[in-house]
């Protein structure tokens, strides 16, 4: 995310260095959150087919390919930095429900969507995909309500689904359930909800920087 230009550019070097450090910290935080969520949510998906006693509990955390969590982490870092950046390019920062409790609620709903997709037995895949789509759109409406968020969400979800499908076709990645349709209906909604969630976190983190910058300009 090199396009994340500091908002009030370079009156002096210290501020720039400060903002770069800030950016790095934000990126790292987002990366860690992404990795964590990827591990946990993967676990949820794995459990769908697991019996009462999985052979060894902790090993199943890493049951997927090793590169999946880092990829998710990187993607979430990029998304989390991209959102505030686009906000800035479009004008003012995102103001709707900008507080941590709301972000936490968003994360909880995201985990809930995953939980539902993993644990609830749906009659058919159409139903599953419709439910998930409704839930994802609801998530966006409740916590985001910005056009940029919606557009970015759609775009990234589309790209991610495409990438995943390519990976699956090339045999680099496999699902526990071989049902192709199942995968296709399930994936974009989860991606979309994930993008919205990570964007929300990223915006909230950027809020701090924004405030700090504002205060600084006040003091100066």
């Amino acid at each position, binding site marked *: 995310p090199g396009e994340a230009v500091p908002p009030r550019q370079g009156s002096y070097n210290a501020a720039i260095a400060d903002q770069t450090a800030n950016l790095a910290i934000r990126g790292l935080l987002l990366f860690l959150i992404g990795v*964590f969520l990827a591990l*946990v*949510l993967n*676990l*949820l998906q*794995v*459990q769908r087919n*697991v*019996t*009462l*006693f*999985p*052979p*060894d*509990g*902790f090993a*199943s*955390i890493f049951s997927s390919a090793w590169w999946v969590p880092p990829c998710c982490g990187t993607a979430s870092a990029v998304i989390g930095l991209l959102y505030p950046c686009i906000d800035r390019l479009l004008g003012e920062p995102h103001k709707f429900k900008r*507080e*941590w*409790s709301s*972000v*936490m*609620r968003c*994360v*909880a*709903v995201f*985990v*809930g969507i995953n*939980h*539902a997709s993993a*644990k*609830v*037995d*749906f*009659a058919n895949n159409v*139903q599953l995909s*419709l*439910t998930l789509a*409704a839930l994802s759109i*609801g998530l966006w409406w409740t916590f985001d309500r910005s056009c940029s968020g919606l557009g970015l969400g759609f775009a990234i979800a589309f790209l991610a689904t495409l990438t995943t499908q390519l990976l699956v076709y090339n045999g680099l990645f496999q699902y526990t359930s071989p049902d192709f349709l199942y995968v296709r209906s399930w994936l974009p909604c989860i991606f979309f909800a994930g993008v919205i969630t990570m964007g929300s976190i990223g915006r909230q983190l950027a809020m701090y920087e924004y405030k700090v910058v504002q205060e600084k300009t*006040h*003091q100066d």
Partner: protein
Amino acid sequence: MTVREKLRQKISAGFYWHGLLCASYPVPIILFTAVCILTCCYPLLKLPLPGTGPVEFTTGVRDYMVPPQEPSGDPGERPDWYRGPPVAYIQQVLVKAAVSPWDNRLVPVDAFRSPLGRVFSLLDEIRNHVHSDSSGVRSLEALCLQVTDLLPGLRRMQALLPEHGCLLVSPGNYWQNQRELFDSDPDLLRTVQQYEPKGLHTSATLKDLLFGVHGKQTGVSLNSRNRVVTYTITMALRHYDVRFLGSLRSRLKQLHPSANCSLREEHMVHVHFKEEIGVAELIPLVTTYIILFAYIYFSTRKIDMVKSKWGLALAAVVTVLSSLLMSVGLCTLFGLTPTLNGGEIFPYLVVVIGLENVLVLTKSVVSTPVDLEVKLRIAQGLSNESWSIMKNMATELCIILIGYFTLVPAIQEFCLFAVVGLVSDFFLQMLFFTTVLSIDIRRMELADLNRRLPAEAGMPPAKPGPLRPRETPPPPRPSPHTITLQTPAFRNLRLPKRLRVVYFLARTRLAQRIIMAGTVIWIGILLYTDPAGLRTYLAAQVSEQSPLGGAGLPHLAVAPVFPGGDPTGTLNVLPQADPTPALSENLSQGHAPPGISWGPEDEEGWRRLSYRHWPSFFSYYNITLAKRYISILPVIPVTFHVTPREALETRHPQDTRHAPPLQTDPSPNALPHGAPVQTDLTLYKVAALGLAAGVLLVLLLFCLYRLLCPRNYGQNGVQHGRRRRGDLPCDDYGYSPPVSEISPLLLRGHNMDIECLASDGMLLASCCLAGQIRVWDAQTGDCLTVIPNHGLRRCSSSGGWEHRDGWDAGAVTDLETLGGAEGQDAGGAGYPVRRRAAPSRPTLFGDQPDLTALIDTSFGQQPPSQAPSASSGFDFGGLVERAYLEHEPSVSPVFSAPPPQPVQRRRSLGDQPMAPTDWDSAVWALELRGNLIAAGRSSGKLEVCLWDAVEGSLRCSNEDGVSGITALAFLNNRIVAARLNGSLDFFTVDINKPLGLLQYRGGPGRGSMPPSPCYSSDDVISCQLTRSVQCAHQKPITVLRAAAGRVVTGSQDHTVRVYRLEDSCCLFTLQGHSGGITAIYIDQTMVLASGGQDGAICLWDVLTGSRVSHVYGHRGDVTSLVCTTSCVISSGLDDLICIWDRSTGIKLYSIQQVLGCGASFGVISDSLLVTGGQGCVSFWDLNFGDLLQTVYLGASSEGQGVRQLVVLDNAAIVCDFGSELSLVYVPSVLEKLD
């Protein structure tokens, strides 16, 4: 639109009335709500407890029928899980084998090699058993549970567990059920042990699985006590066939009869397993809960402006939780049994229901006008938010309704729950939370009222006059307002919430008690319902550990069958007999083998296995037992006796190598040691683990403690309780901050209350109501000089002077002579004395002139009581006289310039006491710089007097003024005096050092002082009025401060003026207060703050004269102001010290002071605040508002409040207690400074 508007109005009105109702009858409504919650939660009692232990149900074998799928008939007898066929029937063949009689030639390995070898023939028998009758031919193959595949993760066990075919396991699986492999195995023990996991483990191991009995019971070890090998052949059957099993049982019994076997074989035990939550399943759950708590935390953090944040947050959480419980209870009541895992959906429900409404309500109520009645505030707040609340509620209901039509059962159930939860949440918000909020608001108003009262009580008539009485006598104790008695409580208000919670927990030991009670109740319930067979387990444990041990019981069972023996006789003997092989060998020659015995504990040997034995056994084949059950059939006992010869024949050549020399001699002592050693080892492991856990816990608690209490209270070598005086401020919480070894120096000498204090860090000057000025050494507390009031001379006429001389016993000198004789000295001009925060605000008291007269009389009568010892004092008289004579010529030219000097000089020379009118005045302002004291007096003719602080000689004075000096500032070589009539006088002090000067001073040498004043006693000091600004202010000047080349004055005319010190030019007139200025602060960094009678505090930019910020902080006057780099500290007549953030103007916190000590505080460093209290001073951490320490100043000053407080350079604190001063020198404070 009109419909909408109408609806909106109706809703608003409804909420308004509801709010009125809630605020009017809080207690009945809360009680009603509690009853509702309890009623709705009542059905929850029927729900099973969350325990994961298996549940058992026993039926008879004889009339066993596979239970029907649908529950029918008496539900009380059968548990509801007992439906349909079980996953499997477990049939165990329990084999006990022993070599008997034991032979000395045998090695320990022989004890289990040939008995284990028997398993193969037995397996063959079982496999090949065929039962044929009229209904057909049945074999085990037809009945048993066919398994297909091991779990892919278990490749390691592939060779050991049957991969397809019958699920039949035995120890023979170790050797692939092949006798040849067994015979050729050189080390049986190693084969058995190599699959055991290392370290501690709780789940079933492979050894348990294959042997089918608990590891300790098998007897397969080199030092087995009784050399009986026990194992089982376990088979899982799909179908229950009575006849086949009966024939198998009778066949095995016939082939291998077990003598004296008295096992009852009539009960079949069905074991039901609940769903067990693995670690992997817990992780997402834990994650959702973490997110939930973060959500709750971030939400409740927003609650603000209420009396008790914690209380309201708790109420909010209680609202949400009880609404969830209510919804579950209601759903259960109406027959909707919750099939969802409650713990999993709970966080999502909370998130759906949310805390938003609660927060919105709080915010709305808080933002209503404060002066309204509580009832009306609540009602208004409710009705303001009613529309949005209803709208949100409707939206949520719609969303849930949509969810309900997804027709997915799980989602439908969730939606149903959510609807009920939402409705009950709304109910609780409206009734419970609103009421709690009204109570809270009322409490806050009460607290506000309480806080306001003392301020009004302290100063009832003070307001009207432009000049408040400077000296309020210590407030009368039995004040009409009993509020003053609650001072400790007020102090407690200051403690941070965090500490208060911790203290509360510590005092009540709440957490401990709750945990203890919870544990006891939990264990009680578990024992009562006995889901995990705890009772039997405990019983087994007890019997195992009893001194009789496992050996005692078998013998009891064996005893009756001894041929010819008297049963009772043997019974008497045997229990005491040592169960050594030697003894048993003697007893049982040619009869039943020694060790093999069947007791009741063999009946259900599987009970001693881990309760996860069966689930893990089946999970290897991907069969889950969760929410299902298995039926365990009674065991088939089989006994093998192996003769020593057989044992020798089957011996492997390498077996003898393992024979330890000790074991070859089966002495009674040697053998019984092995087993305890082994059991002890586990004990040690457990102990070590416990120890490690304990250490970890201690470390964790330590870290927690460091987090919660970052200050190191107990350090600095401070000891507790040595200096305990009175109540410490935190006593209510059971915690007392350590009282350190600070011994305050008491500076006594003044007879009247002290009203002015000045200090330059090294010296301290004080002036009492009587006008007596005393100079003290700030480090030692010695009184250096006493400068008596000249009024004395008038009262006690001629004799008074001698009395005074002796009475003070110090360096008292004849001021008249000195003042005139010494004249003007010369010396360096600038004193690099940095001005420190001087909170001693010289307020005025022109209203009380008669008080001074009163003082004078009492003063005059005292001297005779003190022994006159004129000789003890340092006699300056002679020296001064000589000095005067010598220097007289050099003085005269200087005197010509300042007009007042000749007057003074004339008087002195005339050897006459001054005219009484000149000195009939009190000192209103006092300043000390270097060795010079500047005093401003109150009387009609006013003068600035300069005294030599050490010698007490009047160096010069200036009597230009006509109006009383209300304030003085002494900066560099300039003195600024503010007068009652609003004029401002600038004086310059010139110090001329004459050449060829003799040093007379022999008094206390003060050369070591760092900012030493640069003149000596014989310098000529002149004080010239350089400029007088006649109309600086319209009204009396109340405050005067000087720093950084600026002089700032504050006046009753609501303005602040800034003058330049050099040319006394008025730079700015700062307007912004709506009352008289009462406090000003300015320091070297040009920070200017002012406080007024309107309670407002303004921060100004001195360079531009613009107002930086403006806050209203106090009810009543702001009495004192100090700024640090980060914050502004103000005190007011409301006895509140407020700490503000300097940049934002946000109030950080406030400290409630004791009545009358409101203005007494000082800043020692940027992070240390000291406040005065009733007979004590308290130290606070400025950044966090934590009380660090309270120092009691002495028994005599217990009841008196600290009225003034001056911080000196060396971190000593001078407090003014009526007529005496206290010098507190705090070592720990110095450390804090670093």
